[in-house]
């Protein structure tokens, strides 16, 4: 073997754990979501055909007699109802097509004969049971395959009120939060870059919210925003009526936005700080010699030179805001103020509409992709 090949093999071997992880947990789910968005996948069906059961007990339950009391097929054939037996006693979730297959090709005689002969008293998988007694069409009962719906899930969004509400909320959230937090982060970074006493303390203070768990922050803000909370008490000194900020559908989302700006500004400050430290001192000095005011330096030197960082922060901020979930999950108790990722979660795990949830997340993905491309176009990278 050549040295180069050997090196490559060794390299891939070292990288193998992460390659496998990325494929199974990132790449496969992306493609799976794409597939599921065209189906009616319901997680409760997933184990349906894997379930083990005892056919004799199922039949005893269905017929209402114990196997030992039966001596011939004729005794029981009249009280046997095929569809209800398969649906409820064996427990197969049937749709219309599968119902038809069962009615046409299930071998009732063979089953009842085996029952009378006492051959059924052992646990089997539902799928192998169906394979044994179906004359044809058993491939539909091998494992759970969701129905293919075509673009149904995407069409459904057009008429879905909460899709529109949550999408609107998400855009509203992003449009307010991203510019404000970017600007705030920039100002904080410039302040933290100044040469003065105690600057480390301020850096730390600005940064701490972004490394605190969002659950903890949400709980604190829940208390701040509650009706007898500190915010209302402060506003009370100025004569404002107390408001339950998070319960009132008009104020809930802005309240969460404010919290999010406060949390993330410090994080992006670090990015800007790194950018600022990249700007050579000589440029500032030259500008000062030419008589530039601090304001001019900020607008004409710092801002243009921080362009790559601004693009990065704006992009990451947009992606983060479009996907905002945890704060909404903790603080919003009102369907009118939900965002799209929370709606995806609700559909997937609460309503059991995994297919629709996948379709929603594809739409979210498309929107974020489009936004990022637009941003790239407007703020040119200058490497």
């Amino acid at each position, binding site marked *: 073997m050549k040295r180069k090949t050997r090196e490559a093999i060794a390299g891939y071997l070292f990288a193998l754990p992460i390659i496998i992880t990325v494929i199974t947990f990132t790449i496969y789910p992306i493609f799976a979501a794409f597939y599921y968005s065209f189906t009616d996948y319901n997680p*409760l069906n997933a184990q349906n055909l894997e379930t083990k059961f005892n056919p004799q007990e199922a039949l005893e339950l269905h017929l209402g007699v114990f196997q030992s009391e039966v001596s011939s097929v004729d005794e029981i054939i009249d009280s046997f109802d095929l569809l209800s037996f398969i*649906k*409820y006693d064996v427990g197969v979730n049937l749709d219309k097509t599968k119902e038809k297959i069962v009615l046409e090709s299930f071998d009732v005689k063979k089953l009842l004969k085996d029952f009378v002969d006492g051959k059924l008293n052992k646990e089997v998988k539902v799928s192998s049971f169906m394979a044994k007694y179906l004359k044809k069409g058993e491939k539909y009962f091998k494992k759970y395959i969701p129905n293919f719906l075509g673009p149904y899930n995407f069409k459904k969004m057009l008429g879905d009120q909460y899709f529109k509400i949550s999408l609107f909320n998400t855009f509203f959230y992003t449009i307010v939060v991203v510019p404000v937090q970017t600007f705030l982060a920039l100002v904080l970074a410039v302040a933290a870059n100044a040469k003065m006493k105690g600057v480390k303390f301020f850096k730390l203070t600005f940064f701490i919210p972004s490394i605190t768990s969002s659950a903890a922050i949400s709980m604190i803000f829940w208390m701040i925003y509650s009706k007898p909370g500190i915010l209302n008490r402060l506003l009370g000194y100025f004569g404002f009526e107390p408001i339950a900020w998070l*319960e009132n559908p008009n104020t809930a989302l802005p309240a969460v936005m404010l919290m999010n700006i406060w949390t993330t500004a410090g994080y992006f400050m670090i990015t800007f700080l790194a950018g600022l430290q990249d700007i050579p001192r000589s440029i500032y000095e030259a500008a000062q010699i030419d008589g530039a005011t601090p304001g001019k330096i900020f607008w004409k030197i710092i801002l243009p030179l921080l362009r790559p960082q601004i693009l990065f922060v704006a992009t990451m901020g947009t992606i983060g805001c479009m996907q905002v979930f945890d704060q909404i999950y903790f603080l919003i108790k009102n369907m*009118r103020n939900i965002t799209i990722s929370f709606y995806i979660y609700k559909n997937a795990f609460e309503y059991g509409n995994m297919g629709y949830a996948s379709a929603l997340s594809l739409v979210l993905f498309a929107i974020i992709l489009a936004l990022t491309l637009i941003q790239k176009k407007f703020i040119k990278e200058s490497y």
Partner: protein
Amino acid sequence: MRKAFLIVFLSALVVSLSFAVTTVTISGWPGNPDEEAAIKAAVDEFNSTHKDIQVEWEPIPGNYLETLKTRISAGTAPDIFYVDVYFFEELARKNVLLPLDLYIKRDNFDLSTYFEPLVEAFRFNNRIYGIAKDFSTLALFYNKEIFDKYNVPYPTSNDTWFDFLDKALQLKRKGFETPLVLAADFNRVIPFILGASGKLVDDQLNTALDTPASRFGLKFYIDMVTKYKVAVEPQEVGAGWIGEALGKEKVAMAMTGPWTIGFLRGSYPDVYKKIGVVEMPSLIKKVTMVYTVAWSINRNTSKKAEAWEVLKYLVTRGQEIFVEGAGVLASRKDIAAKDTDPIKVPFYKGAEYAYPWRVPTPTGIFSVANDQINSRLKDLFYGKITLDEALKQIKGNYLDWVSGK
């Protein structure tokens, strides 16, 4: 050396096989400390009396139904778990619960010792999929001290809606600003809808909320918040839920269930002494809600027979321990008869005319509709839409919401 190892290993294997113990995992949502202690006591008693079966209690904290569904779909669900009547039909319809009829018949297990509405609550397609572990009904809690202070007569079990409203208005007039706490929760409105002789669904299982009687009950509930301004949401008084508002003495009255008793006793023992409980106010007929939770067996478990043994224990002797320790209401009549705590009387009375929290739909799925209706209730509480607009939206979309697509 190696031989010695092999012998030790083999004998260990033989020993462990001959004392094979089946572990049955039971699961639900974690309760308050009293409930946790009671269920642990029940499990311990079972484990000490059974050698071949051992029970393990593994509660699922947080979003119970979401977690349970995910684990069912992955094939890792517990052997026995709580099933709330609210989502029972959805699970039964998807064949993830084990029908118990055969075991009941085989063991001559007597279901008639359980309150009938509670047995029926877990029947689907003529099969029993769970046995009620306990139940709760709603009743009216009131704070005697506040009523005394403002010199307003206490609520009684025979109060009509208008007596009830009048007492709240009196409190308000005399200076107690927040007499009543209400939640924007559809299930809490149901007693008012049914109490006005309204219906939830019509014969085709479409919504009947827009029929005059139902509308009247709905309107009364919302008017208490918007028109008479005698009721607030718990968050308005800085409480997380109704029981907490009562415990903080921010409100004089609340319609809630027996779980509030245990909570008050534990967290606000001083307030608990001032609390009285009466039956729900009525209009045309007495109505309250019954919430009940069953123990059901996972259809996919490999230990069906053992699970049935455990379930049988949990709903008989286990229930006795639970009722004593956690202050819940017994679903078994003989255990209920032993339960003579006077504060529980209005709840047991309620069981006679209670409506189970299970709205029939063509697919068994009500969660989407529930969210949608709750969201509109919230809007109504805040005056964002009118009742007619809300009802029109509900009527227009209802069949979509329950379609499960």
